[in-house]
């Protein structure tokens, strides 16, 4: 009798083990084949995805382990209709088993943490010839400054296969720098003591988007800027063009300045509605203000609204959205250039 029971138990455990192995393989292959992650466009993505692979394997195994045991037992040992009141076997526990399934997982999680630490260290390897870029996030724009070249841009141009070192800071609230194809993410904090560093090496040419991943109010969803990973030669061409080969007339300078400082994040130039009034045909138009008075938008009003945005707010738009420090940021000539640009938008 005892022999028969042990044999019978062996039979169940054998079937369950085979099912667990089968299900593990099926789940693993399924998860690997559905394309869980975006393409790997940085060397960090490759390292991080290796750790994802390990996780997927563990998930497939543990999922199968628990599901097969429960499912098999519920189907095979469920209540027999002929003995509806029958109880299960009186087994209250096994300290041996409990110790095993405490210590084995403990070892596994320590090992995975160790792999995680290695993976993190690998993603943070410093290359001395890294390209420095200062990134500023604000409501709701990104601005990229290349201190080596004296360029400021609203598009993140990156040469392929060269590490970049981003120094990130925010003009107002917390934002977060994330390009899904690069995998890495870093919050962007306001305050000069909280400049954060993020390094990665793009390895795949193409167009990507940097997305703000930390809720920053209002137009958070639209706080995206293009990222262009190009060859070293194309990057150099772009730098040359930025450095001199652009028109120097006030109107064009004003347009560049507005674009690179994120003005278009709130003020559209095609007439569509935004967080702030559109610039299209704004010059010379009549606007009602929050205070109730009506004004004609002229040069004086535009100038004052840039350096002192809270004083005369157009009806229907919120206060305290625009930075108050443009007077320190721009020269008078630069502001006049921007006004020239706004005037041109008819």
């Amino acid at each position, binding site marked *: 009798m005892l022999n028969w029971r042990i044999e019978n138990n062996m039979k169940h455990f054998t079937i369950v083990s085979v099912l667990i192995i089968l299900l593990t393989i099926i789940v693993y292959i399924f998860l690997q084949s559905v394309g869980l992650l975006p393409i790997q466009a940085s060397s*960090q993505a490759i390292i*991080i995805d290796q*750790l*994802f692979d390990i*996780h997927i394997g*563990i*998930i497939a195994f*543990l*999922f199968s382990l628990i599901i097969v045991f*429960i499912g098999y*037992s519920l189907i095979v*040992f*469920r*209540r*027999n209709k002929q003995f509806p009141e*029958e*109880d*299960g*076997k*009186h*087994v*209250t*526990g*096994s*300290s041996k088993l*409990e110790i095993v*399934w*405490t210590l084995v*997982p*403990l070892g596994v*999680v*320590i090992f*995975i*943490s160790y792999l*995680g*630490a290695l*993976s993190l260290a690998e993603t943070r390897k410093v290359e001395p010839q890294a390209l420095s870029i200062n990134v500023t996030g604000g409501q709701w724009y990104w601005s990229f400054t290349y201190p080596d070249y004296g360029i400021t841009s609203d598009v993140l141009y990156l040469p392929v296969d060269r590490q970049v070192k981003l120094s990130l800071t925010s003009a107002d*609230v*917390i934002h*977060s720098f*994330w390009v899904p194809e690069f*995998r890495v*993410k*870093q919050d962007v*904090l*306001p*305050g000069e*003591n*909280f400049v*954060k560093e993020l390094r990665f090496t793009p390895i795949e040419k193409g167009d990507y*988007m940097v997305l*703000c*991943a*930390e*809720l*920053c*109010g*209002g137009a958070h*969803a639209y706080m995206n800027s293009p990222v262009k990973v190009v060859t070293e030669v194309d990057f150099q061409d772009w730098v040359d063009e930025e450095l001199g080969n652009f028109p120097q007339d006030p109107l064009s300078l004003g347009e560049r300045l507005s674009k690179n400082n994120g003005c278009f994040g709130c003020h559209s130039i095609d007439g569509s509605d935004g*967080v702030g009034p559109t610039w299209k045909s704004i010059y010379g138009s009549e606007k009602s203000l929050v205070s109730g008075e009506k004004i004609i938008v002229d040069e004086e009003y535009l100038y004052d609204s840039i350096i002192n945005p809270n004083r005369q707010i157009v009806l229907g738009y919120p206060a305290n959205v625009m930075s108050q420090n443009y007077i320190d940021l721009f020269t008078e000539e630069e502001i006049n250039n921007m006004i020239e640009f706004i005037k041109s938008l008819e």
Partner: protein
Amino acid sequence: MKNIFSLGIVKGIFFQLIGSFLGAGILGVIRALMGLSWKTEPAIVLGGLVGAIAFIGGVGGFKDWWKMAIGHEVAEANQIVGEKGMRRYFGFSLDHKVIGIQYGILSMVLLVLGGSLALIFRVELAQSGLQILNFVQFNTLVGLHGMVLIASILMGIAAMSNYVVPLLIGAEDMAFPRLNAFSFWIAVPASLILMSSMVFGGFETGWTAYPPLSVRGPMGIQMFFLGVYIVGWSSILGALNLIATVLTMRTKGMSLFKMPIFAWSVLATSIISLTATQLIGLSFQLVMFERLLNMSFFTPSDGGNPILFQHLFWFYSHPAVYIFVLPGLGIISELLPVFVRKPLFGYKWVAMSSMGIALTGFLVWGHHMFTAGIEEYLRVPFMYSTLLVAVPTGVKFFSWVATIWQGKARFPVPMLFVLGGIVVFLLGGLTGPPSGTVSTDLHLHDTYYIVGHFHNTMFGGFIFPIFAAIYYWYPKITGRRLSETLGKIHFYLMTPSFFIMTFGQMRIGLLGMRRRIADYDPAMGFDFTQLLITIGGFLIAFSILIFFYNLIVSAKKGELATGNVWNSRSPEWAILPSPAPIHNYAGIHFNVVGEPYDYGLKGSKYVELEKRDQYKERDL
């Protein structure tokens, strides 16, 4: 009319309204005397606070304490019979079973509110582009959805603990009945204040309320802070009461390791609530002060540190996750043996695993901040401690599996929800480690993957178990059973809908969908999955409507519950009639004579009436 006004809750809300205007008015007068102009923001904060206290006055919560303070006699709670019928649920009662139901009703009301908020923004997200909401509305809905449901969960676990724990441990009531009633009633004005944030301009920060964003922007955030702050009182005082009850009110012979396992999980949860809730209150209070009094704690331009807030916030809000799930996991451990007719495998290990989760839960908050810019040397230690939580959680899973193994399983509705809870929580657990290791979390943080992950833990750890608990103990509450057919429809509709929703969320999250965005780029190709998620959400809502219909109809028309409905060993089924009488075991003497879960051991009993009571006729 007079009849309606005599209901405690109506009186309370009326008093709250008056109190709010009074509070706001007082501030206006003080400012006027100081020669300052009217300012709405501080006025609504003071108004809200005074209103909440006035509510308690209105509902009658201070009456007995006042009498005690001036030296009058007050009746002992176990001497009070209280009102009969439905009315008792709408007024101040000291009966733990009434308070448990009151918590349950509030939890369900908040569940409906919080769920409906989600349905509104799910419609917005069903396709790319902005259709029905503007940014402020979207952000407000997302933030309130989170916090209203957190409140709903806190109320739900309080409902289960309050109703069930004294019954399980053989107590007549909770240790401090008046404090118990206060803990419940203070949550009502708190919920109203929380919801009123929508009226005062909403807020844009999500439920996490990170400064500096929460320091700027609409003043609805103040009502959000104040509401949460007061819900926190409810949570802390409720936990204190439960700890005292479990430790001191157990029946004769019930040592700690002979308690029903649910009592252990409630004990573990309450220890966390009692010691961690202060931190979210504190962090929110500091932001309130920053806004009201221009003190700078978190704004860097004035010398503050925004990361400090996140440390304070997550020091509560991570352990809070275990506050939410431990009672649910306790329900699973409690019901599983009844329905597989086998002892709970490794009782002591399961009990200690709750304590283990509670303890390790305090060491892991930093994993919410891997990308936040915390000190470099903190990330790896937090990764180790985070993954450590898997060990006690694993003990629970393996013990459940061993309990089920070779059990004679039967599948009434509560068992279905128990099994659903195990599977869903398993998915929640397994999707955790990828966000626990730092480098993979750099990709996952603040994406829909996280949204999917924590909806798994919340559904598996709370929603499924509380439904199991309601289906299981409903006969003890009403004397009638819920409809099995409707219950099965509820289960078989909700479970697949939930999987559609959560797998959809994790799928697009991995591919680059960020959390809390009102709109997404159609070029990312998420439109179809987003539509599926929305449909899943609506189906879940529909299944819960069926559940409510069942709750209401079965109270009158359900099959009468007689005797030991589930053939359980625990005292509330083995000894008490259904519905449970007032003051539970008053006048009954019973002893603990065996182990709580010795199913399958012939002739064994957990509890036994004393000889002198066995001859008494009771309508079992």
